[in-house]
Structure formats: C-alpha cells, structure tokens
C-alpha cells in the first residue's frame, strides 16, 4: 500500500483537475492578450478562474491576482506594500513564518527595522506583544494563517484589529498558503490587506498561485513587462495551470464541509492511535486551533530523518524539518515553540490530503511502530 502523507509539501493533482488542464491545453491555448477570438476564449476562462479562486476567500474577482506560486505572491505583497520604506520605518513578522516571508524580512533588515513576534509552545502569537510592537512607523505586519510545520491557526480577526487600532495605515499581509481551501476564510470580515495562496497545496498544478489585494490599495509591482494581471504580475498567464487551479477550487468549494470534516476526523484518528501505540511521543498539533491536515509529532530517540527513510522504504511518505547528520540545520520553528532538544531531532510531520483514507491508518500506525522499535533498538545504547 502506498500512502502519501506529505500534503503540506505538495499534493497529487485531482483527476478532474488533470482533465481540465488537458482540455485547456487543447482548446484554450490562445494568449489571453491576443486580439482574436482564441485570445478572447482564453481570457474568458481566466476570468472564470478568477471567480473560482475568489469564492474560496469571499472576495470579489477583481481583488484576485494570479502569480507563479505562494513564494512569488508573498514577495509581491511584501515588497508591494513597502513603497514608502525608510530607515525609520519598521515592519513586523513572526518567528515561525515560511521562508518565503521570513527570508524576505531577513533581507529587509538592511533597509529598515524588523521585529519578530514570539509564540508560545503551541505556536500561538501573543496579541499583547503585537499591540506593543505596532507603532506609528509600522508599515507592514505579515503573519501566516496556518503554520506549515505545526498547523497552528492564528486568530487573524483579533490580530488584525489590534494592528489597525494601533495604526490604521499599517498594512496587514497574511500568508494563507496552508489554510486556503482548508479553513473558512472570509476577507470581508477580516481586517487584512493582502492574502497569498497556492494551487499545488489543494490538489491543483504546481507553478500557480494567487494574491488577494484589497480593492483600492496600491501595490508596486516587482517585475515589469506586458502589464498582465493589471500590472501586478507581468508575463503571459499560465492559462492551463490557472484553469486547473480553478477546477481544484471549485471542487473544494462544492464539498468544503465534507472534505474538511473528513480531514479533521482522519487527523484525530491518527493522533489517537499514535498516542496509544508509541511511547515517549509528543504530539505538537493538539487542540481546536490547529489546521485539519497537519499532525506534527516528536518521537524520542528516533531521528526524524531516519524515520522518513525507513517509512519511504515501506512506501509511506512523511517529512521532517530537521536532519540527523552532524551538520544538522537548526529548526527555527521548533526552536520558536521551545521544543525540547531531545524531541526536536525526532520530529516528523504527517500531513493529510483529499486522497487519504481511513483504510490507511492502521497500516501506517503499525509500520511507524515497527520503525520506532527498530530504530530505538539501535539509537538507545546500553
């Protein structure tokens, strides 16, 4: 049995999506900018897709811009919001952001003051700290909705209100790559200015993403060219990819409650069985404020990387943030939640998707149990 449990890294394209991509390549390959009918047909499809992507977050289609992926969306948003950047300005993000935000802020340390929000040991931000840090010079706050490694969900409404109350001109960007299509988002109720998402995390094709930008906000583009996507993202649109993504959005929109409910139940089943079967295990994704599809666990005396390889050999695919080699990269996120070093090395992430089923659970649990026993027999000395 092959069990793919790395859906936070990327997902398998759904069949309906694949069909839509094929159809797009056969029938809608015209350049949306072309004046002729083929161009118009493609453009219409693109606008249809924009409506599909907008529905997921409750925005108007005009507020959606297609990009080349989540990383690009985050970069466009962050740099786009910082037109008036000066030495005196400050910008704020969290210690647990995805690299496509975190490394942008690191980069900006040479240009302005950068502040990083701490989290508690579950990954939750402290609203009081945010309240303290936002001031009249704060241009931008960027906070991820769902953390990709632990699954913690931040309270965007509360955090956004805190920001806007302190400084109504401070822009609020949200990286929603892990939550888009998995957690209900309604941009009309959330005090945010931009929000990024990605196609390949929701069973769409890779190389497509999007950015919601609140209507009326001016964003400076990063790249210049033919002025596609209303100048925000020049370059011929990836029509077939966008059409595929739109199909993935439609499928989720139609079955949202069923599908997310299944993910929650599956997640709870895994957590329950892991806790029952494995000794010295710490589950880092417990609670109501966690995403439906991410299960982060730390297993004592089991190097995460070894477990990953052991499981891959039995056709089960999970992932790890840390490496067992002596040159182990430190794990920023696990440090941020102050996870015990003993447990850090043994941390793996199981992430669920549409294709996972309850039939897989017992095979996975049995195999993890065997793996843990085997690996511990080697790592535990004396």
């Amino acid at each position, binding site marked *: 049995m092959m069990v793919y449990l790395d859906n936070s890294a990327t997902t398998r394209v759904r069949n309906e999506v694949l069909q839509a991509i094929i159809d797009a390549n056969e029938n809608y390959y015209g350049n949306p900018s072309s004046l002729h009918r083929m161009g118009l047909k493609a453009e219409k499809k693109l606008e249809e897709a924009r409506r599909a992507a907008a529905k997921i977050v409750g925005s108007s289609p005009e507020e959606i811009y297609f990009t080349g992926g989540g990383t690009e969306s985050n970069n466009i948003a962050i740099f786009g919001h910082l037109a008036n950047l000066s030495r005196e300005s400050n910008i704020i993000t969290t210690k647990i952001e995805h690299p496509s935000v975190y490394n942008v802020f690191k980069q900006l340390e040479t240009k302005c003051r950068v502040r990083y929000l701490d989290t508690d040991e579950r990954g939750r931000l402290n609203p009081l700290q945010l309240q303290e840090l936002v001031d009249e010079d704060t241009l931008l706050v960027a906070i991820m909705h769902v953390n990709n490694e632990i699954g913690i969900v931040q309270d965007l409404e509360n955090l956004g209100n805190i920001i806007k109350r302190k400084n109504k001109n401070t822009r609020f960007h949200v990286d929603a790559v892990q939550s888009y299509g998995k957690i209900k988002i309604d941009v009309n109720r959330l005090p945010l200015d931009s929000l990024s998402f990605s196609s390949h995390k929701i069973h769409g094709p890779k190389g497509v993403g999007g950015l919601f930008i609140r209507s009326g906000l001016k964003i400076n583009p990063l790249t210049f060219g033919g002025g596609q996507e209303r100048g925000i993202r020049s370059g011929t649109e990836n029509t077939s990819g966008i059409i595929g993504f739109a199909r993935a959005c439609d499928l989720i929109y139609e079955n949202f409650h069923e599908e997310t409910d299944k993910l929650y139940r599956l997640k709870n089943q895994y957590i329950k069985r892991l806790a029952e079967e494995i000794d010295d295990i710490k589950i880092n994704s417990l609670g109501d404020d966690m995403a439906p599809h991410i299960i982060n666990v730390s297993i004592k005396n089991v190097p995460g990387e*070894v477990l990953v390889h052991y499981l891959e050999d039995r056709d089960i695919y999970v992932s790890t943030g840390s490496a067992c080699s002596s*040159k182990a990269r430190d794990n920023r996120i696990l440090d941020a939640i102050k996870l015990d070093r003993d447990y850090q090395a043994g941390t793996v992430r199981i992430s669920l998707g549409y294709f996972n089923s309850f039939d897989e659970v017992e095979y996975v649990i049995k195999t993890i149990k065997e793996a843990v026993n085997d690996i511990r027999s080697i790592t535990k000395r004396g």
Partner: protein
Amino acid sequence: MYNIAAVSFGEIFLKGKNRGSFEHKLIEQIKFSLKDFKNVSVYKDSGKVYVETANEEDMDKIVERVRRVFGISNLSPSIKTSKEPEVIIEKTKDLFRYLLSKQNIQTFKIKTKRSDKNFPIKSMDFSALVGGEILEEFGQVRVDVHNPDVEIYIDIKKACYISSERIKTLGGLPIGSNGRALLLLSGGIDSPVAGYMIAKRGVEINALYFHTYPFTSERANEKVIKLKEKLEEYCGKITLYAINILEIHKAIREFCREEETTILARRFMMRIAEKIALDNNMQMLITGESLGQVASQTMRSMAVIENAIEMPILKPLVGLDKTEIIEIAREIGTYETSILPYDDCCSVFAPKHPLINPKLESILRSESRLNVEDLIDKVLETIEYL
C-alpha cells in the same frame, strides 16, 4: 578551423614491447571519452593517434574530453589536408589568418616533417617555400627560427596535418595498462581524489560504497553516483558496488564498545572490499586516507584496520594535507559534489570519543564477540550495482 586533433603518447614510449597493447588501450579510452559525439573517428598514423571530426564546431569540446585521457603527453588541434603542396600552402595561410585574428603575431616559424618520403619537396625547402608565401600574404610579420611568437608545424604522413597550438594534458598511463583495483568511495572529498591518482598510473578502477540506509538517505547514493560519473571522465567505465552495512553497525553497537565502532566497522569494510576485489579480478584496494586526518587515520588506527586483510591497500593521499587534496578535487571537478550535505554514514554511528590509539589485541577481542563471516555474508546480500 580545426577538423582533427593530433595526440602524442606520454610514457608509453618507455614501455618497449608492450607498446602495441598500450596504444590500443589508449585508443579505446579516447573512443570511450567521446562516446556521445557523432561523426568522430580515431585512428593511428605513424606514431600518433588522430581524432577526426566531421563537425569542426565540436573540436573545442573534443579537445576538452581527450585532454582528460591518461597516457597522453600533449595534443594539437590540427587541419588535415591532402598532400598537394598548393593545398597545404593555402590551408597554412588559412591557419595563419585564424591565429592572427586571435593574437598579436610579429614573428613566426614554419617547421615541416616529412615521414612520407614520396612527398616531392624536402622538409627544409618546403618550410622555406611556405614561409615565403606567408611573408608575401601577411606583410607585417617576419621569420624568427629561434624564438617565434607562433610556430606552424606541417606533418606530412599518409595525410598532411597542420597545427600550431600544443595543449597540455594530464600525462600518466592509459587506463587498463596497469591492472585493476577497487576504490573505497565515500561521498567525501578524499576518496575520489585517491581514485583519480591511482587511475592516472594506468590502473582500471572500480568503486565500492558503503551506506546504512535508512540511517542514510538515497540522496547520498545519488551523490556517490555523481562522483563516479565525474571520475569516469578520466578513468573510463567504473562499476560502482553499493553495500548496506547497517547490520554490521547494529551488531557492533550491541556487542562492542562505542569508541571502537569506527575501527571495527572499517575492518569489516576492508574485508568486504577484499572479497569483492578477489571475486572480480582486482589486485589492490585504494582508500583516500591521509595520515592523521581523523581518528581512524592515525598510524596505529591504520595499522589495526589494515591488519584485517592481506590485500595491499594503496593510499595515494597519505602524505598530503587537506588543502592539497582539496586543490586536486577542485581541479578534477569532484569538490562541488563532495561537499553536498548528504553523509554516507549517520552520526548515530559515529562515536563521541573514537579511539586514536587502538590496541590490536583488544580490537580482536571485541571482534571475537561478533560472527564476522556471517555478518559479511549477510550484508553482501544487499549488494547493488549503481
């Protein structure tokens, strides 16, 4: 410009009556190095090997490949022509014009060698004749036979070859002219360099790689395959054996002291390597050890490790500093791959305080707690050919 490369042999000249077979090996190696080129032929013409291509634009790449074949003292990109004097003169002018476009030339010299005595003009006379034509055509240059900016060499054999540049090569002896050996190839910096150095002396090498999957990654295998492919650019076809020694590590961990792990594991590796070498007609082993570099490479450690087998172990890097090894690794192009992060051994099996002065008797005592033969047979079952 050039449609052929003239290849001069290196030390092969010293090898007396073996020369024929050495030349044959060399030609084979040259052909192997060019296996993905179309319309290339390799042949001998009195004392030299020629690599001819129908696509002149390939010549730079061909030279770059052939330059790496061991057993060549130098090579010259050349123009092959028929032997009518007027054709040779025209082609020489073409070459001269080409050289002028690339460098500042004030003086030149023409040198002719006439192995084909049917050629109607004597060498000296022909050089003078061609030189005169050049002077007439390109007024601003003059002849200097002692220290010319450019020397054009006209070699008249079965065909005529005109050349000027002489490209430095690696020297050494043709692969396969000097026996076969098995290289213990890790993903590190040293072992590929060791393999290169022994191969340079004409030894056909194959490689053996030990891993501890799932305690190491499949990406570590890919890294070793890349190193092997890099080495093949110099060493010709290499068979890469991969063996999973996890069972051995498990046994050592269970029955022996932690600080002995590396020494014991390396004794196992030598035994396995010796067995594979003997089974496959290889006469020696090669390792990348450099004296004192790590705990297992002290004088005592090396002695205790070697004691496990009878087969001689070549250690061409034994007296080199790390910086010297890195320099060679960069030159041969293995360095960038070697420093990729995937280790061939998990740190789980690296003792915190490895022995640097192991005693043979106590190692043997530890080893007696293990079923050495069974363990070796068991891990040999995991053999893969990468």
